[in-house]
């Protein structure tokens, strides 16, 4: 730990402390404001980085303020470096190895979601501002003019989702993005999308709940709401990306699944994933394919008489019926949230109800999306650590440290909650001596889902954190070590 000597810092026993007079050195260079540059130099010393790698960016940032400012900042970096070196702070075990020359990006999960939506052909995004989701609409409102798309800042989240549903019914790829409070307001409309078989995507960037809760803090407490929040029963898909790169690809997947199964798809992130800027692999457009599902070509219907009724909800073996977009001649049909017949006309008779409910629910029955669970690490582990969302990094690090200490550890990460990947998850934890489910909530929602859907293991426990901060690797490591 590097800390400003000015504050007489102390540290726990196992932490090695380097008090560096950050403010004092900065003042000596010209201004106390440059103490971040001093600490940057000190950090570079620890990591074994030469100070001249900062020259380019310092020039870029400060040259408009004059040559003197550039020199002062470089000096602050150099002096921080030198002070740390004299303290014995050049630590070989922390030295960074040179990276392979690769193209990288620097972005947060929300940037990747916006780019993914753009690449997936989303063209209508009605949304209501909310932390931590607003960046997605802000990003797209800048980029949509280049592709003919539109962001509407709606009056509330109910309007946002019902507008997206209107656009999706109209033939656009449409989505909205929100957080917990907005998700709660959208529940009736999610049911509408399920009932009318309208493909729509909802991004839920989770934050601390309930109510306004911890609006700018980390939590993963919307899992049950996403799965069970709407009244009635509908087919629905819930996807849970864990990395920035996955935030990009998941949007392609979400739109394809929504249009293939003609149902709402919820993409869940959490605040730490949505807002943490990080080094990201270069994204590839070819990782997003566009498959619009069963849509009838206008030519096939052109010669039908004006009173022909298109069977928008035709009973099929898969439960999936062909769609047609409004405006197409010969495709006239009715769509309603009331129980309906194959033509979309309302019909509430018991026989029709049973038939249509069965048709809708059949679409996802028995389906497990490939890649819903990813397992890494040892076979027959002493512990399998199960996580979801942004905890992927801390869990991986904790598992690696456990292995260094001679334990066998596996990391099981869940990337989709609905359809619940019962078989994949069961298989992933079957050979573990113990299972610990790591989640940022107070009630162990993921663990409850596992038992609800029948994923069984004799020794499952929870590691929960709900103070608004993400897990640290050491917390997961210490917990697991304590279990051994």
């Amino acid at each position, binding site marked *: 730990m590097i800390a400003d000597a000015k504050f007489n810092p102390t540290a726990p026993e196992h932490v090695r402390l380097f008090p560096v007079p950050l403010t004092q050195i900065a003042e000596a260079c010209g201004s106390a404001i440059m103490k971040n540059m001093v600490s940057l130099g000190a950090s570079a010393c620890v990591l074994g980085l030469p100070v001249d790698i900062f020259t380019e960016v310092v020039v870029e940032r400060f040259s408009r303020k004059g040559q003197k400012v550039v020199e002062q900042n470089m000096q602050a970096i150099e002096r921080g470096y030198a002070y740390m070196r004299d303290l014995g702070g050049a630590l070989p075990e922390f030295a960074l190895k040179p990276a392979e020359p690769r*193209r*990288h*990006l*620097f972005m947060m999960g929300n*940037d990747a979601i916006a*780019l993914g939506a*753009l*690449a997936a*052909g989303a*063209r*209508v995004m*009605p949304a209501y501002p909310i932390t931590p989701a607003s960046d997605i609409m802000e990003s797209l409102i800048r*980029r*949509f*003019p*280049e*592709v*003919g*798309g539109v962001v509407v800042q*709606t*009056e509330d989240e*109910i*309007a946002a989702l*019902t*507008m*997206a*549903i*209107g*656009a*999706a*019914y*109209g*033939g*656009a790829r*449409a989505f909205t993005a929100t957080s917990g409070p907005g998700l709660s307001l959208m529940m009736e409309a999610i049911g*509408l999308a399920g009932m*009318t078989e309208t493909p729509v995507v909802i991004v839920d960037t989770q934050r601390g709940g309930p109510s306004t809760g911890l609006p700018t803090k980390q939590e993963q407490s919307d899992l049950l709401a996403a799965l069970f929040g709407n009244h009635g029963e509908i087919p629905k898909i819930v996807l849970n990306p864990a990395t920035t790169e996955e935030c990009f690809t998941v949007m392609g997947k979400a739109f394809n699944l929504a249009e293939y199964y003609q149902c709402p798809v919820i993409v869940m992130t959490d605040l730490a994933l949505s807002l943490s800027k990080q080094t*990201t692999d*270069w*994204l590839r*457009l070819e990782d997003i394919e*566009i498959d619009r599902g069963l849509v009838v070509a206008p030519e096939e219907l052109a010669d039908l008489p*004006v*009173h022909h009724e298109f069977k928008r909800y035709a009973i099929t073996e898969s439960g999936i019926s062909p769609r047609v*977009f*409004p*405006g*197409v*001649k*010969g*495709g*006239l*049909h*009715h769509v*309603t*949230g*009331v129980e309906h017949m194959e033509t*979309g*006309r*309302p019909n509430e008779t018991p026989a029709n109800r049973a038939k249509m409910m069965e048709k809708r629910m059949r679409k996802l029955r028995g389906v497990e999306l490939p890649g819903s669970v990813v397992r890494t690490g040892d076979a027959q582990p002493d512990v399998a650590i199960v996580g979801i969302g942004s905890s992927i990094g801390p869990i991986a690090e904790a598992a690696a440290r456990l292995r260094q200490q001679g334990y066998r550890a596996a990391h099981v990460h869940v990337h989709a909650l609905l359809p619940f990947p019962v078989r994949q998850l069961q298989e992933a934890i079957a050979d573990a001596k113990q299972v610990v489910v790591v989640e940022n909530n107070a009630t162990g929602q993921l663990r409850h889902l596992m038992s609800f859907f029948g994923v069984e293991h004799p020794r499952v426990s929870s590691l929960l954190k709900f103070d608004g901060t993400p897990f640290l690797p050491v917390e997961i490591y210490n917990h697991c070590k304590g279990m051994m």
Partner: protein
Amino acid sequence: MATVKDFRNDVRPNWCPGCGDFSVQASIQRALAALGKEPHEVAIVSGIGCSGRISGYINAYGFHGVHGRALSTAQGLKLANRNLTVIAAGGDGDGFGIGLNHFMHAVRRNMDITYIVMDNQIYGLTKGQHSPTSAHGFKAKTTPSGNIENAIVPAQVALAAGITFLAQGFSSDVNQLVRLIQEAIQHRGFALVNVFSPCVTYNKINTYDWYKEHIRNLDEIPDYDPTDRAAAMKMVVETHGLCTGLIYKDEHSVPYEDQIPGYREEPIAFSDIHMDPALFEKTLRAYA
């Protein structure tokens, strides 16, 4: 060219005999035929309530959504396909109770859609509770000793929110209503046609006769100027909202769709959505 018959289907409305909504349905069908529209070029998006069923009674594309949100769904549809004639429809509870927020914002957003409200000043489908347009003192199942809330005057709210086309009709005057709906559809921007459409079963106060007695018909006022917003507001205030005809029209209205940066003539629904790889790389470089 399509005729009125082409806009009819064989579904029998579940409205009570004598319901004002029959006239509204017929007026929409006549207006669409008169404008030379084809059924597949039209989408009716409706809310929940007796009148909300109207989207199923007209041979066109129809979307019957959730209570109070017909307007937001209709706006989304219009954005996906700007070539469609989009008509939202519903009752006073749907539009001015649960949906009032969306109404106000749809008005100021000014997309090129038409909103037809069948205003009967009562909740009919749920069998006789007071509605946001029920008068003060009005007795209903939920106001047994008389309504102690004041009524919303839709025309006043619409003008206050900056509406660019405002008309009111009456189910007994179909010829006027057909004309108003035609003009509303032709208007470039958000158009409201609020129709006094009596509920013969649950509202024994605001009957056909009552409306006939209280409504002032602007068609009978030769020097009324519907382009004068202040005069329109004055008329609405003076008549407590009980006037019919074209109340206000902004002839310089520019719809929302025409102001979206980069929005194209070709409807989104039928355009290629694959991204140009060069544009994608260019976009990524902002994060490099």
